[in-house]
């Protein structure tokens, strides 16, 4: 029966994970697939991310309903009640239409049974094959059977068939028989060899005599078909093209009719000279289309055919293809890093990449600097380990380069290089010299310019505006970089390491994926999306998330993923009809708070590492006498299916009110505890899993002789008392005993009382601000069946976007806004309150109460579950250079409006000058306004279209055209605009002569003062936030120093506030183009739908409570709470905790001297008891055991 899912998400990088979580949290079932054998995509390899320089992936995890999903580091792994994860799986085909897609998925087998593998690593120790490790970006080697990501949970080994030398040693070494190469199926894998070539017909049986395949050589197609007709269980047919073409074609077609699952491989002789080879290729191609699998070139050699056939057999037998049904599809396959070694256009290692050990790509440097990397994070050169003292970064490798088919900017490499340089400076405390060679340093995120200033001014990173042309091996093994600086001098510098800031390329499997999903690709190879509907691909119902549509950094990818999730969720609602109203019943657990604690202790055994070096008998005795422990049982391999069923039977038998499991990986079993809880009707918070695996390593010598070997040696020892041997068995038993005792003591103190009651959710949303962002968010929520109230300060909807006339990509914003305003006003679910303001707001996520005063003085009180703040922003006011004084000086926005209205006649102009970054990116407004470069370019192109000869001069610091906007920068230059760079300290000077501007500036390229007298000067004034201070106080949210909203986390929770239930989007979050605002609005809408789709929001098991009598109201716990979950309730003079916000981190307990605040599950007595248990101060010690 085909599995049914709400959505299918292709690609489990951060984009895929975010989309999957956003959908799963609204109750939809999600299938998350990834071609790699591990989760996390490129982020599994990155430890530090700008601008916070830490990793923050786990902040994507849900804050409410926490127990439905994993609550540990997301780079380790993800599980969620509503998400099924299929790894090593690719999308093979997609039929059907939105609401009812049939997706066929093909899963490449890893040849390791996950339910059996206990990741003991014995297989890897015997594997002779070596291949570059993907995780360490090729800096280290790995074996053919390997762990894709060392720190994943659950961590299973996988076999990489391409590297495997088929020595089968891992198969023999595996203690739990988890590796399965299907040997026994060889004997019934019949192979037909249809070839007129007698010599070949004799050779093949000879070659395969000890491979165990039944072979059937036939001289013609008919004989082969006869065999098939007789019902031969044939797995593979080798069809020789030397047979007459017609016969070959008929055999193939007939064979596939007889056995559709048959694999047919064509044998084609190498193209002989003369023209006959032409039709041989054409025939092969035709047969391939008909269904033949691949073509093998003759003459065949034994050394080449036998391994090829072995691997084909293993693929055919182990791989599987299955299909699922999904309402919508989200493609988040991300991107590949550009590989300088394999550059199109031939000039491969101009940058010495591959031939000099010191030249690394930015991904390789990331691995080098990571503590889990090859050099444990020390900055030493791969290969000879020479410490790196001087490192250079080279920007735009494989980006902004027409020769490499990359006329786009990958938008993240500049920031990655700044981060890596900053990291190197900090880690070496300033000893490492760092230099970044760039053309435009693109820091166009809100906080990025400050990040660059910090790197440049405080950390001392050198920024060199030049593009090195030649990289040569340096005098003593280092690297010589030659470049032309702006003063026109040829410079040479020597570095120990050169990091190539490689750009983004479409994923390797892009054409296959595009063909399978039926979507179109743009000329740079990325998924084609339209600028004002950025998430829609060319096929309805299929969305692009993360960096799949356009290269983007983490923040961009997360916002795109959220928006794609909203698109998919709306699509599913529209085509699936109203949401199924019956949420599954919350499992109710028996109340055990009155009962005496009865602990069942289950110890996992018979796992290779555990069994042979612990004295189980003694352990059992010691555990049995622990207070509260009623039964101690052994379970064979709890991690496997059978082991777990055995454990459940034991538990049902003993009917305990506490369950303690001693096993290896605690996190693996946590999802199963919920299942056990339902079976025993016991709250999972009263169960625990303790890691006794690491204890089994204590005191053990690395050789794997284990206890049996050493017991023999001990016995032979001089007269020691039998059984006591020095290999640490006694200490291991004691250590494991104390671990179990500690866990038992903790369980004894567990608080069985019910959780604080869940807060019901009022299914309505409030959106403040009726601009483009506010309206899009409102539409996003309303279309999914929830009521929305949209409050707008002015008399009409539209906000800042109404001033735009045309966009760079050629859309018509005016018409787009008209449609949007019309749709919002007509939408039954949206109530628009114009000329009205929010007066008061109280409450918390799910239960907000807000009072809104309308123009006519009417006050509306509104109960709503979530809030979106979209108060927007406006063009910054510029009062210099004669703006507003001289007619000939205007801003880009005015120019756009006049050009559209025709009040500026381009053909009449003699010359136009533009000045970028006016009062942006310097102290009074130290951020890049992101929109003015694109604004200037669209005006230039419009001017040039109307008057091609018009000279246009643009004074700029860095042109910030990230992503595909780069194409328009090239077009603008090609149309004749001349771009002149200026440094902040040598700004162009403007004077006026008979009411015409005269601009004098230094042209750095010519090194000459130039003087321009155009008849129009256009300033790029940049963007400022609306006055949001009052709104921020009302809703208890923060502002950044520049007045934008301060979101919870700029990368991982870009549209949430720290205060749960309040979200922000659009220009109020930071400078944004129309496209950015649309995306952040949709992402915010989906976050709101996540709350509104719950009937009630229940908090997690581990939540803080306040014992009011002890509290001295000193307020320390409020200031120390990272989630803002605590507040002083002035009327009742008590500290109150918002259970939804509280993440159980325990900071408040640490700060409170009086233990007035307590965390469920970590009470003082409990912790004291655990400490005592750790010191083996237990009754068992008392009982002399």
């Amino acid at each position, binding site marked *: 029966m085909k599995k049914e899912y709400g959505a299918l998400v292709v690609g489990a990088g951060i984009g895929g994970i975010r989309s999957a979580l956003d959908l799963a949290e609204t109750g939809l079932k999600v299938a998350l697939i990834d071609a790699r054998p591990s989760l996390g995509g490129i982020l599994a390899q990155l430890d530090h991310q700008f601008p916070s320089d830490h990793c923050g992936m786990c902040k994507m995890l849900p804050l409410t309903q926490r127990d439905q999903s994993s609550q540990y580091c997301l780079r380790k792994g993800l599980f969620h009640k509503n998400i099924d994860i299929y790894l090593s799986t690719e999308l093979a085909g997609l039929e059907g239409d939105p609401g009812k897609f049939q997706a066929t998925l093909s899963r490449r087998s890893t040849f390791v049974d996950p339910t059996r593998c206990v990741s003991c690593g014995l297989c890897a120790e015997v594997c002779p094959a070596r291949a570059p490790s993907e995780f360490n970006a090729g800096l280290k080697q790995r074996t053919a059977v390997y762990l894709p990501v060392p720190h994943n949970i659950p961590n299973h080994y996988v076999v990489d068939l391409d590297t495997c030398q088929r020595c089968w040693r891992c198969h023999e070494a595996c203690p739990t028989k988890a590796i399965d190469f299907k040997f026994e199926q060889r004997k019934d894998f019949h192979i037909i060899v249809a070839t007129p070539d007698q010599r070949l017909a004799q050779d093949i049986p000879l070659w395969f005599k000890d491979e165990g395949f039944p072979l059937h050589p036939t001289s013609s197609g008919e004989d082969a078909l006869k065999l098939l007709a007789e019902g031969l269980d044939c797995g593979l047919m080798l069809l020789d093209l030397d047979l007459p073409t017609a016969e070959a074609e008929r055999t193939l077609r007939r064979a596939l009719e007889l056995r559709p699952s048959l694999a047919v491989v064509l044998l084609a002789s190498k193209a002989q000279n003369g023209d006959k080879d032409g039709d041989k290729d054409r025939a092969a191609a035709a047969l391939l289309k008909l269904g033949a699998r691949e073509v093998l070139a003759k003459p065949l050699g034994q050394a080449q055919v036998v391994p090829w056939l072995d691997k084909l057999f293993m693929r055919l037998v182990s791989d599987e293809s299955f299909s699922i049904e999904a309402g919508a599809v989200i493609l988040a396959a991300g991107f590949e890093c550009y590989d300088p070694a394999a550059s199109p256009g031939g*000039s491969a290692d*101009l940058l010495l990449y591959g031939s000099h050990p010191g030249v690394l790509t930015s991904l390789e440097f990331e691995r080098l600097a990571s503590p889990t990397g090859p050099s444990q994070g020390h900055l030493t050169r791969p290969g000879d380990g020479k410490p790196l003292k001087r490192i250079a970064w080279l920007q*735009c490798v494989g980006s*902004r*380069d*027409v*020769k490499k088919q990359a006329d786009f900017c990958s938008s993240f490499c500049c920031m990655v290089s700044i981060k890596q340089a900053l990291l190197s400076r900090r880690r070496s405390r300033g000893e490492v010299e760092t230099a970044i060679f760039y*053309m435009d340093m693109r820091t166009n995120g809100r906080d990025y310019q400050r990040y660059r200033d910090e790197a440049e001014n405080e950390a001392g990173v050198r920024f060199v505006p*030049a*593009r*090195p*042309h*030649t990289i040569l091996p340096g005098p003593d093994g280092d690297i010589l970089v*030659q*470049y*032309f600086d702006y*003063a*026109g*001098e*040829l410079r040479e510098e020597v570095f120990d390491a050169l990091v190539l800031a490689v750009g983004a390329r479409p994923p390797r499997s892009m054409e296959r994926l595009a063909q399978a999903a039926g979507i179109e690709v743009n000329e740079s190879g990325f998924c084609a999306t339209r600028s004002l509907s950025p998430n829609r691909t060319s096929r309805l119902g299929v969305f692009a998330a993360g960096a799949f549509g356009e290269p983007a950094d983490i923040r961009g990818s997360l916002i795109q993923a959220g928006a794609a999730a909203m698109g998919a969720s709306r699509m599913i609602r529209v085509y699936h009809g109203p949401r199924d109203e019956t949420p599954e019943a919350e499992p109710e657990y028996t109340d055990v708070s009155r009962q005496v604690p009865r602990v069942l202790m289950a110890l996992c055994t018979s796992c290779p590492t555990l069994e042979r070096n612990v004295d189980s008998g003694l352990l059992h005795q010691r555990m049995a006498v622990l207070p509260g422990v009623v039964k101690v049982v052994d379970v064979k391999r709890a991690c496997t299916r059978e082991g777990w069923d055995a454990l459940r039977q034991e538990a049902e038998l003993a009917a305990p009110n506490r369950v303690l499991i001693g096993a290896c990986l605690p996190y693996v079993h946590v999802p199963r505890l919920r299942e056990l809880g339902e079976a025993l009707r016991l709250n999972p918070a009263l169960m625990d899993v303790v890691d006794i695996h690491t204890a089994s390593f204590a005191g053990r010598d690395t050789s794997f002789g284990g206890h049996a070997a050493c017991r023999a040696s001990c016995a032979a020892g001089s007269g020691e008392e039998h059984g006591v041997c020095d290999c640490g068995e006694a200490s291991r038993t004691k250590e494991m005993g104390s671990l179990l005792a500690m866990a038992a003591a903790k369980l004894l103190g567990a608080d069985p009382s019910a959780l604080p009651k869940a807060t019901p959710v009022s299914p309505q949303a409030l959106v403040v601000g009726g601009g483009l962002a506010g309206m899009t968010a409102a539409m996003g929520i309303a279309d999914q069946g929830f009521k929305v109230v949209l409050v707008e300060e002015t008399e009409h909807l539209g906000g800042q976007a109404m001033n735009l006339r045309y966009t760079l990509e050629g859309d018509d914003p005016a018409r787009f806004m008209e449609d949007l305003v019309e749709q919002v006003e007509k939408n039954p679910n949206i109530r628009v309150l114009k000329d009205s303001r929010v007066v008061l707001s109280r409450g918390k996520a799910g239960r907000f109460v807000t009072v809104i005063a309308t123009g006519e003085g009417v006050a509306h009180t509104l109960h709503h579950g979530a809030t979106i703040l979209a108060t927007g922003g406006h063009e910054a006011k510029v009062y210099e250079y004669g703006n507003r004084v001289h007619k000939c000086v205007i801003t880009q926005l005015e120019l756009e409006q006049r050009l559209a209205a025709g009040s500026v006649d381009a053909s009449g102009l*003699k*010359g136009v000058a533009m000045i970028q970054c006016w009062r942006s990116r310097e102290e009074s407004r130290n951020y890049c306004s992101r929109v003015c470069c694109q604004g200037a370019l669209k005006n230039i192109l419009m001017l040039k279209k109307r008057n091609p*000869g*018009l*000279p246009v*001069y643009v004074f700029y610091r860095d042109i910030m055209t990230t992503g595909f906007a780069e194409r328009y920068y*090239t077009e603008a*230059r*090609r*149309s*004749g605009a*001349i*771009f002149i*760079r200026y440094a902040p300290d040598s700004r162009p000077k403007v004077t006026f002569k008979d009411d015409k501007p005269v601009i004098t500036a230094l*042209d750095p*390229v*010519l*090194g*000459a*003062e*130039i*003087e*321009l*007298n*155009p008849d129009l000067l256009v300033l790029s004034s940049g963007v400022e936030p609306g006055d949001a201070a009052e709104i921020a106080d009302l809703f208890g949210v923060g502002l950044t120093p520049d007045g934008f909203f301060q979101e919870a986390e700029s990368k991982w929770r870009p549209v949430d506030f720290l205060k749960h239930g309040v979200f922000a989007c659009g220009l109020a979050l930071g400078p944004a183009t129309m496209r950015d605002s649309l995306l952040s609005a949709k992402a915010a809408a989906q976050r709101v739908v996540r709350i509104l789709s719950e009937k009630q929001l229940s908090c997690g098991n581990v939540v803080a409570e306040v014992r009011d009598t002890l509290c001295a109201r000193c307020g320390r716990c409020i200031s120390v709470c990272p989630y803002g979950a605590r507040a002083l309730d002035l009327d009742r003079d008590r500290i109150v905790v918002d259970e939804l916000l509280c993440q159980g981190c325990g900071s408040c307990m640490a700060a409170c001297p009086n233990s007035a605040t307590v965390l469920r599950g970590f009470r003082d007595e409990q912790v004291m008891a655990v400490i005592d248990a750790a010191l083996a101060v237990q009754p068992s010690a008392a009982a002399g055991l």
Partner: protein
Amino acid sequence: MKNTRPSISFTPAPLAFKDQELAAAQDMVRACMQCGTCTASCPNAFAMDLAPRQMWRMLLFGLTQEVLESRTFWLCSACYSCTLRCPRGLPLTAAMATLKRLAAAEGDSANRKKALFYQEFMHNVEQNGRIQEMGFMCHYFLAMHDPLLPLEYTPLGLKLLAKGKLRLGGRGQRGRLGPLFAKVRSMEGAS
């Protein structure tokens, strides 16, 4: 190649398109983003008074006079390194050749002198169908009116003669290309 040029001031008049070649040269380099790769890749850059990057810049600014006065484009040995490496894919070597043609046609006497070598070469090809090295060199020395010039080539000339590598008379292709040259001259004259 330090270039502390005096300040240049100009009112940005619409660029003169009277000359077809100038417009062609500008179109070739308009999309230049001043990254300097061409300058750094040129084997003869050390001898140039204006770096190629600066020359393109002045060309775009419309400072044709300063461009034609410089020696830069005469030093281009057509090795195509810059064309290969230019990240904007601009036909830089073709632009250099265009500037040579422009200088030969409109440039001052010094430029016309530099173009003589190429014109004499083509004149010899027009007459003989295939280049006659001896004949061509003699005509070139005469056209240069520089008595010392032949002395530079005598050691090479003697070596070639000794090895019998210099043909004296024509080889039956005399005048073969006459009609073609005439046709091209008339076509180029017209356009």
